[in-house]
């Protein structure tokens, strides 16, 4: 049943997000075209408009993915559509898992579209070499493998945002238990969940710092981390975020399984 639920959740997101993907790529192409034409005032103005449109659409892809995930979660679990969702012969775990994977998939798709659009708009061999050289100068200085550096960097950002989305889900579940001002309480509980998850990250880093004086420097002074400690911190951050996402998702499932009260 999870695959069936996921199929319809993905269809919903495709219907709502595809226009942003198309526009993002469209403005990336126009950006490339106008900057490759012989420059004149008009061409330059249109090119700049194109750049502005492209970046606003790309920002929109990220924001819309997050907002749509929350809205879809709220609408199908607590609003009118809930009359259908909760009368389907599926478990509450499947309902939650479907929303979880839908968000995960569209977050990855959005990320790919953003990278693809930037690639279309700005790729030249020279720029590519410049970028590689910049990254490699950073990673060489840090004695880091380039690929591992990029993957870790992207993974931490990705996990951080995904954690925020899940805090939003938990906020909605707890907020909709209240008999009034459900949206206000959802925002409040989501915010508290996010603060708590960030506090857990800090606490765990602090605990590791008790055994590694270099990491403890993060809490006691302004000295930059040494390479070895930076590596430990990056790996630690990935592990902690994965753990928090798992914990948050178990918490959401547990709370949802306690039952709902649909107006």
């Amino acid at each position: 049943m999870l695959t069936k639920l996921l199929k319809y959740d993905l269809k919903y997101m495709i219907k709502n997000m595809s226009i942003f993907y198309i526009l993002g790529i469209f403005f990336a192409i126009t950006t490339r075209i106008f900057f490759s034409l012989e420059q004149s005032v008009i061409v330059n103005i249109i090119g700049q408009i194109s750049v502005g449109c492209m970046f606003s659409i790309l920002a929109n892809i990220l924001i819309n993915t997050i907002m749509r995930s929350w809205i879809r979660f709220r609408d199908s679990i607590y609003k009118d559509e809930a009359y259908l969702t909760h009368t389907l012969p599926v478990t509450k775990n499947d309902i939650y898992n479907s929303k979880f994977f839908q968000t995960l998939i569209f977050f990855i798709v959005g990320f790919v579209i953003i990278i693809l659009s930037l690639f279309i708009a700005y790729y030249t061999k020279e720029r590519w070499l410049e970028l590689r050289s910049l990254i490699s100068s950073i990673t060489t200085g840090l004695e880091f493998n380039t690929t591992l550096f990029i993957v870790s960097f992207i993974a931490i950002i990705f996990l951080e945002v995904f954690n925020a989305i899940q805090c939003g889900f938990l906020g909605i579940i707890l907020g909709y238990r209240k008999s009034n001002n459900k949206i206000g309480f959802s925002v409040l509980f989501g915010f508290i969940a996010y603060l708590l998850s960030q506090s857990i990250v800090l606490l765990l880093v602090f605990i590791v710092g008790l055994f590694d004086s270099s990491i403890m420097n993060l809490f006691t002074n302004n000295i930059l981390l040494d390479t070895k400690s930076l590596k430990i911190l990056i790996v630690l951050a990935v592990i902690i975020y994965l753990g928090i996402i798992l914990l948050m998702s178990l918490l959401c499932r547990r709370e949802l399984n306690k039952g709902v009260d649909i107006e």
Partner: protein
Amino acid sequence: MNEMKLLEIKDLNKSFDDKQILKDINLSISEGKIVGLLGKNGAGKTTLIKLINDLLTPTSGTVMIKGEKVGVESKKVISYLPERTYLNKQMKVSEVIDYFADFYDNFDIEKAKKLLIDLDLDINQKLSKMSKGMQEKVQLVLVMSRIADLYILDEPLGGVDPATRDYILDTILTNFNDGASVIISTHLISDIERILDEVIFIDKGKIILQSDADKLRNKEKLSIDEIFRRMFKC
């Protein structure tokens, strides 16, 4: 030996904050009955129905469907028509039909298509382009196209003209499968009186009467509508 009831509710209570909406509900419904859940507006009919359908969580007490607690198995055998439109309005009628066929093994696509034609509904139309009344008819088609054991219809006649009411009642009567039971919640008693086997009167969150419809009529020498009006006189 105790006969297993299709629906059995024991000591059911539901409160929102300090306000108690349902108080100590006990009732059972056997197979093959058409039951009228009758009460004034705000008596607790919809709350009771929502508890049977897992849309509300009981404060205390149990709801059992064919001997099992409300859950995946009960949802397979209950076909529920809420009192509001709940379908995703971005979908076409054909997509909604596919959706129901995907999730309910007992959904009869051919029957749904036939009912849509009978009710003059376009299968290719988007729900957002339909009037509220048309959307309600689509929902009725979806519910009655399932081969369920228990049909629960919450105010199926609310907001429609008398001619359509008769048509809806006929659709219900001719489309629920043999051996199944139907619970119809309404305050328009005179319209459904003719089809009821049993009646349940609910007032201020309490069941005040559950009886065989004919026995009640014979005992009181009045129609159910008249009995209701007498009992709930303001």
